[in-house]
């Protein structure tokens, strides 16, 4: 579930409001967006991928809440880690080009 929208990092672009498939975020005319409907979060991690400044953190729990500490997350490199993994963002290359599913398929095929 979504656990963090960093006030420090957020630039108010409202991308998360736009891309969240379950409408978890709420835009605000004067301020940065808010996590308005946390219980609707389906833990799909898509908002993290579209956040240009790595201001969001989705904990990997489908059901339970797990308060997150921004400083800890930043220190452990978890803020923005998924976006880095898929190679999205300035100066990065999409890791779709490094997809080794074909090796998995070859191995699965061989074992049948």
């Amino acid at each position, binding site marked *: 579930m979504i656990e963090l929208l960093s006030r420090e990092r957020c630039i108010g672009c409202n991308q998360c*409001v*736009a*891309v*969240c*498939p*379950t*409408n978890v975020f*709420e*835009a605000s005319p004067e301020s940065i967006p808010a996590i308005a*409907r946390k219980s*609707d979060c*389906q*833990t*799909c*991690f*898509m908002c993290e*991928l*579209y956040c240009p400044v790595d201001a969001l953190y989705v*904990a*990997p*729990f*489908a*059901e*339970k809440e797990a308060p997150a500490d921004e400083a800890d997350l930043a220190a452990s490199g*978890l803020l923005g*880690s*998924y976006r880095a*993994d*898929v190679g*999205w963002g300035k100066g990065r290359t*999409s*890791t*779709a*080009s*490094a*997809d*080794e*599913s*074909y*090796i*998995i*398929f070859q*191995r*699965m095929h061989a*074992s049948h």
Partner: protein
Amino acid sequence: MTEENIRYRADVLVIGGGPAGTWAAIRAAQEGASVVLVDKGYCGTSGATAPSGTGVWYVNPNPKEREEAMQSREALGGYLADRAWMRRVLDRTYANVNQIAKWGYPFPIDETGTSHRKSLQGPEYMKLMRKQVLRAGVRILDHCPALELLADDDGVAGATGIHTPTRETWRVDAAAVVIASGGCAFLSKALGTNVLTGDGYLLAAEAGAELSGMEFSTAYSLAPVFSPVTKSAFYTWATFYYEDGRVIEGAGSQRGRSVIARTLLKEPVYARLDKADEVVRKAMRRAQPNFFLSFDRLGIDPFTQKFQVTLRFEGTVRGTGGIHIVDETCATRVPGLYAAGDAATRELICGGFTGGGSHNAAWAMSSGYWAGEAAARYAAKLGANASKRQAGGLSRYSGIPVRPAERRGASDTSDIVKAVQDEVFPYDKNWFRSGPRLNQSLNRLHDAWNEVKAGLAAGDGNVVRVREAAAMTATARWMLTSALARSETRGMHRREDFPTQDPAQHYRLISSGLERIEVRPLPQEQQHPAVKEASL
């Protein structure tokens, strides 16, 4: 009649912006149609594909590989698939995936220079598809769930709905409609599926369309117990353990999944991917970044540490049932209404057993392409005034409310959702089925349906919740009524009271109706919707 805040006219309305919907929209636009695509969430992130990675049934067009591909799952599917449709989907998928490469999708190239095209990374694929939809001139309305179809005496003529963030209403008058809104996973939180609540089935049923194969809806995927990330294939390399560390004999990700389900009924199950060697470990990480995300964030090494697993329900998303299509254009029996992707039945290529992501991805891009093309041609035939009909909303025929009840004491949508989940999630009701238990479940579901009809309150006042609860209740009733009618074990449908396949039931089952649900075998001559070879 209330006046909608947002109004558009189009030749073709596509409901759903996942793989099937985006392919439908692009193809319809290529045919010269004006197209509006509405998505319940956001076209590009919505649905089961976007947050995941998916295999694709992409097979080189040489006779040996194609024959092997078609043969591989025929027995598993209970011989309900259709070779002519498989051939046609393999051809279409091959062409479409190559088109995706031309659009710039970065398929991996190995050291021999071979481009590998049997896998798509969901975020990358759906970002690209959104771009192509916009480039084709399609108008996308995000966060716009459809609440009811519009129709007149001549057929379907558009839809109305709501813009979730502002609660403004929208209306799109269109000559033809493609339903591509996905399957139904009953809010199980399986990755990306919480927008997939069977909404399209309900819309189609209100218009008089039928469903097919709804008994093949017992898909459960392996996932860490805490996590939404379902990726059963990786558990090919897992050993499964009891809490005390003993190995669970016979447990496995494919045929051994029933053993896991039976064990989970009594006690927790743990897994460790300890059969993966270095090459596979590295390949897994590169194949599915999101699979490792959960583990990395918790500091678990799934190759060396045991973690508790569960089987998360994926309903018809990974089942094979859906809206019945009557010909090679993916038309329903209702004029002007087409179905594609997981919203439509996938029995034509999978029979009664899921082909997994690979077949579903192939089916989505093929059926979407055909449905979009046919909808555009249908609209062209109707002429320019087809979207100016005086069409009315169809929920008035079903009596299912399209707004929350205001009276006190009405059941809340969350009560209905819980009641429905209680009949479809448990392994001892839905994985292992039996006549008496199905009857008990159906009685409770019929009660739930009566509560739906009486009107539901929505905790947050959101009308979408009411339609979702109604759609899930209806879907569960079609599923279990079909399951009761199929008194045998075939494909993924397992009856403990009829544990073998019955040659006399080698047919597909059509279900229909909302108030009273009817199930009938599909007559032999209609088993194979005609495929014109020229239309490949």
